[in-house]
């Protein structure tokens, strides 16, 4: 009888492990991919942009510019270019400017000053960005007024048709059909704090009615992932072809009970999410080129923060830091303020 019980237990364990392996080991699955992640990292007393392989096995300092603080990289949908920010100066005299370069770090070019929170339009030729609210610098994420668009081939910059009403937005993300921009608003446009769908070329603004921040569209436009709280990321379905898109029920969640988890981003195939994870804090202002504010804010030193990947699975959740470890994977491990990752597939040569 004892042998039978032991066999049943053993068999159950084997079956569960097999099921887990069928669900996929994140590291193994990403090891087969050609995806890269570009992210900011505080290395050698300044901010640099690193490109890390999707399985985290290799990482290269893309910028390698001592004394120049590069931040908040965003890869174009075609993987050919990366737009990013540079902070120059100290305190409120800092000038935060928007730059663009090729995915391999060549061809750096300034787009404009006093801009932040940029994202790419689906055409991979237009960068949407948020102009700074006032001329003096402030590290606050929602320190913005309006939305502008810069078209790289022509060099022209235009304002959103509704720009005068767009106030205190942050973390904009373009829908792949080009119709909508999703963003968080704080203390602006008549809202206390919420996430909005903004018509990219019109006046419509839709309150998605979800708490949290930093929403981002999946590559197919069928889902939004966002930070539902300091310790939760969530995914919901959305119909962006509708004139009045509505969100469905939560589809997938990521939790971390101890550390903060922020800056969610989708892999190009929509199967994985990356995120920044680290302890609560307000930065270390003795580090050059950094500011004193919450660690998740752009430009704030975040000791112990690393990039992680998780696999998206409908109707399930992942708790980082807990077993089973096959459904989450650290991609960086040095804790050097690794934040704001963005996936891309480099163009084939």
């Amino acid at each position, binding site marked *: 009888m004892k042998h039978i019980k032991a066999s049943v237990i053993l068999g159950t364990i084997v079956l569960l492990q097999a099921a887990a392996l069928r669900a996929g080991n994140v590291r193994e699955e990403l090891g087969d991919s050609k995806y890269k992640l570009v992210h900011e990292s505080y290395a050698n007393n300044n901010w640099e942009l690193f490109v890390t392989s999707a399985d985290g096995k290799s990482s290269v300092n893309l910028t390698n510019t001592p004394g120049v603080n590069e931040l908040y990289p965003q890869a174009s949908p075609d993987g050919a270019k990366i737009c990013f920010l540079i902070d120059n100066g*100290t*305190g*409120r005299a800092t000038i935060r400017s928007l730059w663009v370069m090729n995915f391999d770090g060549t061809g750096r070019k300034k787009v404009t000053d006093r801009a932040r929170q940029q994202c790419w339009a689906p055409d991979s030729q237009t960068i949407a960005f948020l102009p700074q*609210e*006032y*001329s*003096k610098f*402030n590290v*606050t*994420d*929602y*320190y913005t007024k309006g939305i502008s668009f810069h078209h790289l081939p022509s060099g022209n910059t235009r304002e959103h048709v509704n720009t005068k009403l767009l106030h*205190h937005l942050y973390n904009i993300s373009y829908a792949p059909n080009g119709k909508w921009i999703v963003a968080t608003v*704080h*203390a602006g446009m*008549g809202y*206390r*704090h919420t996430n909005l769908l903004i018509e990219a070329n019109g006046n419509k603004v839709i309150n998605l009615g979800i708490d949290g*921040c930093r929403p981002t569209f999946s590559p197919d436009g069928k889902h939004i992932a966002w930070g539902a709280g*300091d310790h939760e990321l969530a995914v919901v379905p959305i119909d962006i072809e509708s004139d009045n898109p509505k969100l469905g029920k939560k589809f997938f969640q990521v939790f971390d009970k101890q550390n903060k988890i*922020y800056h969610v981003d989708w892999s190009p195939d929509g199967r994985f999410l990356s995120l920044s994870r680290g302890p*609560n*804090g*307000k930065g*270390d*202002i*003795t580090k050059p080129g950094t500011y*004193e*504010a*919450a*660690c*998740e*804010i752009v430009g704030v030193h975040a000791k112990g923060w690393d990039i992680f990947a998780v696999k998206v699975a409908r109707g399930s959740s992942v708790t980082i830091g807990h077993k089973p470890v096959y459904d989450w994977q650290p991609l960086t491990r040095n804790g050097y303020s690794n934040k704001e990752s963005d996936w891309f597939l480099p163009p084939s040569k």
Partner: protein
Amino acid sequence: MTHRWLKGALGLLALGLAEGCGPAPASQAKPQSVTTASGVPMIVVPTGLFQMGSDDYEADEGPQHEVRISSFLMDQFEVTHDLFVKAQLPNPSRWQDDIRKPVERVRWREAKLYCNERSLMEGLTPCYDEAKPGWPCDFAANGYRLPTEAEWEYAARAGTGRLYSFGAPAKLKANGWFADNAGQRTHVVGTRRPNAWGLHDLYGNVSEWCQDVYEPDYYKRSPAADPLGPAGGAGDTRRVMKGGSWKASASMCRASFRKGQRTGDTDACFFTDFCGFRCVRRVTPADVLSLLAKAASEK
């Protein structure tokens, strides 16, 4: 015209503005109002002695103890939306329907940043060193800073020994916006009666950040003259918040009430919609004479 400001200045000196003078008499004369270089009305709070805290309420309010406060300038009103954005700071407030309302949802760091910006606008030396962790305060600088909790309570009591300077708590509705009369929102500053020294909204509208680290038993060992609060605080320690607010009960509006409030400095979003502030700055008799002379010449 010259006589008027000179008379005011002499009155201030009589109230104990000059260092070394004795305690202020209980609201016998109204301290002078001055307008700063950036156009902000402030009250010259005289040097004086008062009984700080209370032995009759929460444990952290005791023991009641005598404190001597050196004269200082205090904003007549809470910092409003229009003042905050004039300093090129993003307005974090929940209610944005009137620029004359007090800012709220303000982190402790943002309140200090405003103080520094206003100092720079007026050619004064900022009190907070933004390059050092925790932004330490130089109390000797002539710029703006947050009040110590002793300064705040001294100003709220306005020369009276009472927990509500105007008398019985039943009179609170005429003297402050709190839970029973605010309608669950902030109000334009200065729309309730001022206290005896001309200061508005200390008993309501928004609660106000103070400079001090919050420590429940600090009164057992605090210095008798110009206490600055417990040492330390570069980390995310709780800071003292004083005064009632639109969501506070009448009891929480009493002058001795103190709350240890998280600064919000480690939060990307700060939703505490009753946190506001006002500024103070150190002042000398010469400063006051200069400000009064300027005010007289502008009239």
